[in-house]
Structure formats: structure tokens, C-alpha cells
């Protein structure tokens, strides 16, 4: 499991952002994760309380948005989901595609004051 390390990195980044932007209270942290990322949302949620314990983020809520692992078919131009189509274009069967997204792991925003 590698989620704890990255969640600690998330906490560090958010605390740093809060400090530099004069934020006094954080309510919610929103992450964006690609479907092709090796991070498991459930595990991220599981280790979040441990990572924020004793910090200014202790009482914050975590929200995770999932971004699709989409590809653009090089043969027919269709945009399709890589995970649900076993790597090939569902319209024409071509294996020639370009990755559009799905590897992301971003801190999107926080709700704070």
C-alpha cells in the first residue's frame, strides 16, 4: 500500500498553501484522481484521518473526484474509456489510440476561510 505516503504529501501541500494564503480554517479538501492511477480512492480515504491527525486539518472532510481514463481513437476519432474497453476502440476495434487522461492525482481545491 502506497497511499499513506502520498496522503501525507497532500496534507503537507495543503497546510503550506493555507499558511501562504492566510487561511484560518479548512472545511473540505477536494482531490482529483485518474482511473488509471495506481491510487485506490478507498485507501486514500482510509489513511486520511491518520495523516491529518494533530494538524490544522484534523477536522476536515475529504472529497475525491474520479477522472476517466479516456483515449482518443487514432483510426476513427472516437473517445472511449480504456478500462471498460480492454484497450481497443469499441467502435472500430483499432488499438491505435492516444491517452487523453486518467493518470492524474491532483489537489483540486479546498473550501476554507
Amino acid at each position, binding site marked *: 500500500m502506497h497511499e499513506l505516503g502520498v496522503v501525507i504529501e497532500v496534507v503537507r501541500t495543503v497546510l503550506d498553501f493555507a499558511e501562504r*494564503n492566510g487561511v484560518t480554517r479548512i472545511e473540505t479538501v477536494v482531490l482529483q484522481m485518474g482511473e488509471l492511477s495506481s491510487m485506490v480512492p478507498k485507501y486514500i480515504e482510509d489513511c486520511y484521518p491518520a495523516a491529518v491527525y494533530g494538524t490544522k486539518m484534523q477536522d476536515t472532510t475529504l472529497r475525491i473526484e474520479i477522472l476517466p481514463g479516456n483515449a482518443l481513437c487514432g483510426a476513427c476519432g472516437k473517445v472511449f474509456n480504456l478500462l471498460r474497453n480492454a484497450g481497443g476502440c469499441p467502435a472500430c476495434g483499432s488499438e491505435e489510440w492516444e491517452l487523453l487522461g486518467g493518470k492524474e492525482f491532483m489537489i483540486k481545491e479546498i473550501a476554507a476561510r
Partner: protein
Amino acid sequence: MDAFKILEIKKSVYEGNDARAKSLRAELGRDKVFLLNLMSSPGSGKTTTILRTIEALEAEMRIGILEADIDSDVDARAVAKTGTRVIQLHSGGMCHLDAEMTRQGLAGLGTEGIDLVILENIGNLICTAEFDTGATKNAMILSVPEGDDKPLKYPVMFSMVDVLLVNKIDAMEFFDFDLEALRERVLRLNPKVRIIPISAKTGEGMDQWADWMRAAVRHCKES
């Protein structure tokens, strides 16, 4: 009391590691130490390939090995038997190495006078591709029994490597493995990758691999 407002951060979680990796790579460049990050699924032949590589190159350059198994030191002991400098990293149950752990490993190994360090990364094809270790170049091994469709399943890994070793080609006749189909799939994801079929068991293809390593290490010395 003020209401909560949305503050956009839009920052990749990998940014910190990417920055640390970049500075490690620059330092290695200045010290003229070539670091190869070797990745694969479990059992694809990383250790066997490392042993062969040591055999091929030890007369020409000074080599060090970083072994990063999760919880055993079997591979490190196999390497130590060759007399090569090796260190076992304790990744504490982690499934990948990041730039900070790699830096600590290099410090433990001691890179004084070393020309080439090979890092045997932890056996998995997913998260090892997401964490830049700071290596000069990235290599991956795909072994014949794993199948030629792996690039379809792990596009992230195949699109980031500089060299792909297709190992266990001695076993080709027992598997339904189409080398040409693999080549096409990989080149579509990564047109610049160098693909070298090898057998770490029989030694086939090891000359080409040793040549690639030699040229890469020489380039590191000269730049």
C-alpha cells in the same frame, strides 16, 4: 463569521517528488554517475539480468547495485556473491521507490568512484511508473510468459521508459507471444523507446544490451 469559500490549488501530488527527482538527476549528472532504474512485474528477470549485466561490464566500469525488495534480501545476497557493491533498501512495505528513498539508498551505497548504479525497483508495473526516482534512464523488463498485450494494460509504464528488455525469449516457443505485435503496440505509445529482446538465461541479446549500457554510461561521462 465568514462563509467558507473555494480556493483553487490545482497542484499535482507528484510535484514534490518530481522536483526532488529532478535535482537528484542533476547531481548524478554532475558527479558523472549513471543511475538506471530497472522495473518489471515480479519474476520477470530483473535480478538475473543484473547478474548478467555485471558479468558483461565489470571489467570496464565500476558498478553498484541498489536492491529494493519489499522484505527479503535474497536478491542482494545473490548480487553480493559476485563481489559487486550492493545495498538492500528497506522500503518499509512500500510498493515503489521515490526520489528521497533513492537518494538515501545511493548515500548508503556510496557512489564515490562508481560509474554505473542499477536500481532493482520493486516488482510492479503500476506505481513504479508514477514515481520518478531521479534515475538517469528508466528501463523495464517484460518477460515472454507475461504476454504481448501488456502495453494495452499498462500504458503509463510503457510510455515512460527509455529501454524495454523483452526477456525469456528462450521460452518463446512455449508461449503465444507475438514480438512484432508487441513492438507495434509499444512504439505507438512510445516512438523513442529502444526494444531489445534478451534471454538472461542463455545470454542471447546480452551483447546488444551491454552495448546500450556502455553507450549510455559513456554519454553520461562526456556530457
